């Protein structure tokens, strides 16, 4: 519409004005015209000035109209021209990139698949838009999904690509057409980019070479009726037996108030089913799903809702997530400074947990320790670890009621480094020798804790704070503090648990810390009960009651009640969750397309968790058919302790990557990860037309965006990109309709005004 209006008034396309320069082609007569116009202007001024019947305002208006008209005529007599560089016919190349991905099969283009438009407009060189291009340019057609490959025309497309990588496609086409007189690139797509890499990088290259991209958007920006699993956030790894609380976002349009069933499958076995009523106004529904992962190894969890009547796309009704479930014992050191029942009941709570091992160092008196759950006679024989190597062998550390003065300065720093550098989980429990009351204010440990410690603010000795604990909003939605089957039941359960006590004054939490449990104290302020924060590579927690064992022992708690056990089991598992090993492996993605290359990195550190750049690191990759390949890994040189490797994932299926690091003949450690080579369903997610993205691509590179079916000016616009083999064209501007309209308008205005003021 804008284009047509512009052309109606200005005769030429906006692209020509954008690219060209306006110059004056004056001739001798132009200068004569100046004199004539000057006389005419003077006459007009004098004439209107003499009109005694006119007011000053009328004279001014009429004079201005007359002068404007005369100046416009004068401007035309100076012959304004638009100088543009136009592509020489058939001397330039245009790259046409056609989206060959599966999302092009979606039938939202007037009931027809998006692919139909591509076939019609770009299916043959002698028809449709492709013909108009071929008439003026040498056309190179590419199809693209993950990358771009040459084809003759759109007729060669199958629309089965499992990815849409706009940036990679543009880069590949640019590379292939390098050295040719390229007028520009035309990209026909729905714009639903599935690449991880930012599009900006690819556009930068095109901008640097001034290659304009003309984008043609296919499809609709919204689907009338669609439901999709919008987002599922799961951890990459989990300890066997862990209960995960996964937030599943169900996005929808056109199904307000509809009830759907959300199923979760673990390798084909349904592990959760729940009814969800979709909210009104097309809003997405966020559904918390509890799943316990109790099978070791790589597990594919499938979240799905059934296809509903009238849905255009049902392939986006399920989404998969990979979790590497690890079956191992995570060792936690619990250092307790005074005999109290908290230690006994905490240990009992996780006795049955095969994946969490609590080693307790109980100080019973001065320099007198009781070691519980140690693996050998030497473990902790000298008390609390004195070296980083010894302390860092644990993955979690629980500090009970033990005063800061019982540690050396170096041990306090070690504890801070345990969190910060080693990435361990630190849990500080309440007690008369903990927090400020234990003298931790101002120590390195205080820096790590999620609560603010002030040496001047201490609880009076003998005064206890009685707590009726309840979850905060964050706590209600957290898996750690869920003590019943559903969020509502869990909140209810917390409200019925017996009260506990605390003896530490805690007035503030750190910025960035999250309170999961709290309780109103005597002054009705919320006393923090369970708080956590990330610190460096690790996490730090404060659990402030001194007697959570009451949740187990209290007379109101039935013998078979597992609330206390579940709470501690969940909390301790969280403390050691994602705590790194000496060797850690990361793959670029947990799923790759069959035939693509997997890039993976390994982070290698010594027992004190100092990065090693001189380790010998090898990866053993076991493919789906059992084929084993050794991949040597080299230090990346980019980051301390980081080693890189790649392998091709040719066949479909699971690949196990086992990284082993040695140094000077000594084993440093091993790590195992899994990657799945399988076609992805990503194409069908958020698969609406991304006009905004395509418009930005065009604007950033100096091209234009067209809606499908509205590409009549495409060939013309490409002609005036100013690139390739061009010739200079001059276009007269004086006969533009806008000039005539202005002249007539000015004359009419003057005549009309004269009539109004009573002049002939």
């Amino acid at each position, binding site marked *: 519409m804008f284009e047509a209006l512009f052309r109606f008034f200005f005769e030429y396309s906006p692209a020509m004005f954008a690219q060209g320069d306006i110059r004056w082609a004056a001739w001798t007569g132009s200068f004569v015209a100046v004199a004539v116009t000057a006389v005419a202007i003077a006459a007009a001024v004098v004439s209107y000035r003499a009109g005694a019947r006119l007011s000053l305002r009328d004279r001014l208006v009429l004079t201005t109209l007359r002068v404007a008209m005369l100046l416009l005529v004068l401007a035309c007599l100076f012959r304004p021209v638009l100088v543009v560089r136009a592509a020489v016919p058939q001397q330039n190349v245009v790259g046409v990139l056609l989206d060959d991905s599966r999302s092009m099969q979606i039938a939202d283009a007037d009931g027809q698949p998006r692919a139909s438009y591509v076939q019609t407009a770009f299916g043959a060189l002698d028809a449709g838009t492709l013909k108009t291009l071929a008439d003026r340019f040498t056309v190179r057609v590419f199809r693209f999904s993950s990358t771009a490959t040459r084809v003759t025309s759109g007729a060669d497309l199958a629309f089965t690509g499992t990815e849409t990588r706009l940036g990679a496609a543009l880069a590949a086409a640019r590379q292939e057409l390098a050295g040719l007189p390229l007028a520009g690139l035309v990209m026909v797509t729905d714009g639903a980019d599935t690449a991880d890499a930012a599009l900006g990088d690819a556009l930068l290259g095109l901008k640097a070479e001034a290659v304009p991209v003309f984008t043609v958007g296919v499809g609709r920006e919204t689907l009338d009726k669609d439901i999709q699993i919008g987002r599922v956030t799961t951890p990459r790894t989990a300890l066997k037996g862990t209960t995960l609380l996964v937030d599943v976002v169900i996005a929808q349009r056109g199904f307000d108030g509809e009830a759907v069933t959300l199923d979760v499958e673990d390798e084909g076995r349904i592990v959760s089913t729940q009814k969800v009523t979709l909210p009104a106004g097309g809003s997405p529904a966020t559904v918390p799903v509890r799943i316990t992962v109790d099978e070791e190894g790589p597990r594919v969890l499938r979240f799905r809702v059934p296809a509903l009547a009238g849905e255009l796309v049902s392939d986006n009704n399920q989404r998969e997530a990979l979790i590497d479930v690890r079956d191992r014992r995570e060792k936690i050191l619990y250092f307790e*400074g005074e005999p109290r029942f908290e230690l006994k009941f905490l240990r009992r709570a996780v006795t049955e947990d095969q994946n969490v091992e609590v080693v307790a160092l109980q100080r*019973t008196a001065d320099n007198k320790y009781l070691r519980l759950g140690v693996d050998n006679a030497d473990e902790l024989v000298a008390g609390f670890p004195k070296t980083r190597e010894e302390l860092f062998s644990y993955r979690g550390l629980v500090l009970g009621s033990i005063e800061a003065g019982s540690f050396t300065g170096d041990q306090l720093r070690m504890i801070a480094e345990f969190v910060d550098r080693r990435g361990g989980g630190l849990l500080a429990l309440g007690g008369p020798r903990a927090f400020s009351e234990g003298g931790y204010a101002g120590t390195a440990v205080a820096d790590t804790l999620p609560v603010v410690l002030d040496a001047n603010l201490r609880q009076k000795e003998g005064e206890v704070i009685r707590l009726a604990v309840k979850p905060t909003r964050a706590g209600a939605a957290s898996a750690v503090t869920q003590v019943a089957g559903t969020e509502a039941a869990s909140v209810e359960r917390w409200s019925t648990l017996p009260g506990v006590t605390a003896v530490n004054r805690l007035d503030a939490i750190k910025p960035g810390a999250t309170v999961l449990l709290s309780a109103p104290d005597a002054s009705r302020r919320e006393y923090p009960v369970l708080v956590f924060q990330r610190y460096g590579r690790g996490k730090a927690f404060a659990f402030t009651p001194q007697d959570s064992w009451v949740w187990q*022992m209290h*007379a109101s708690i039935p013998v078979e009640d597992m609330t206390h056990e579940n709470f501690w089991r969940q909390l301790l598992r969280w403390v050691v969750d994602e705590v790194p090993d000496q060797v850690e492996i990361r793959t670029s993605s947990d799923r790759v397309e069959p035939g693509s290359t997997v890039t993976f990195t390994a982070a290698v550190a010594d027992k004190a968790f100092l990065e090693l750049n001189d380790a010998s690191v090898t990866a053993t990759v076991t493919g789906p058919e059992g084929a084993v390949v050794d991949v040597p890994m080299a230090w990346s040189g980019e980051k301390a302790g980081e080693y890189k490797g790649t392998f091709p994932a040719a066949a479909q299926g699971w690949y196990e990557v086992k990284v082993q690091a040695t140094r000077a003949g000594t084993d440093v450690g091993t790590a195992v990860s899994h990657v799945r080579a399988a076609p992805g369903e990503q194409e069908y997610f958020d698969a609406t037309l991304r006009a905004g993205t395509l418009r930005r691509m065009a604007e950033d590179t100096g091209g234009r965006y067209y809606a499908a079916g509205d590409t009549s000016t495409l060939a013309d616009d490409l002609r005036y990109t100013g690139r390739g083999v061009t010739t200079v064209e001059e276009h007269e501007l004086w006969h533009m309709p806008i000039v005539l309209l202005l002249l007539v308008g000015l004359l009419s205005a003057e005549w009309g005004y004269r009539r109004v003021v009573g002049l002939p």
Partner: protein
Amino acid sequence: MACVVFAQEGFRGRGRMIREIASTKVDYDGRFAFVRLRYQGGFSRDPGWAHDYPRADWHLQRIIEDVSFTRTYRDESNILTLDDPDLSLYPVAYMSEPGFWTLNEAEASGLRAYLQKGGFIIFDDFREARDWANLQGRMADVMPNLRWVTLDASHPVFHSFFDINTLVTEGYYGPAEFRGLFEDNDPRKRLLAVANVNHDLGEFWEFSDTGWMPVDLSNEAYKYGVNYVIYAMTH
């Protein structure tokens, strides 16, 4: 505040005249408090459950606080029945003269839940010949599937604070023996109850500051008491 309604007509050597002892409770604040279990039975003017109260109870608390970092009430303690809900706030309980122990259903149920949830009970001041059968019978009412096991010195309860390397000792009523009940009858699991057969540790605790008892024997008695409490707090 704890309310102690307690009348005692003085000490005359090792004999005493107890008129009345009411149940008493400390104001719970997280510290360790000794619990003396009160039951029906025995002589009404000198009930067996109350023998050595309160000096034994308080002396043991003081010793525990003095030798270890355990915080106790020192001069306050509890007298509770087995069906008192507040018993659950004190996971170590002491019963004197279980030979006279009688039990109703509510008490049996209270003790059963207490032990299953993590409580620990000490039986003291009884003779094997006269009292063991009653203790065995009452505990069978509470935990019918559990069997008493004679403990040896290698058990962790004898090393939780002091190292007690031999259990061969002359008890108050003859050669002593220490028997226990284990969770699931598995001696590798938690000890739920300990019985000081033919012994009366409470007697030694009570009179340890008078000079009437040999110091060595008093010390030995404290070792058992301290170890029982520390064990119950850690196992």
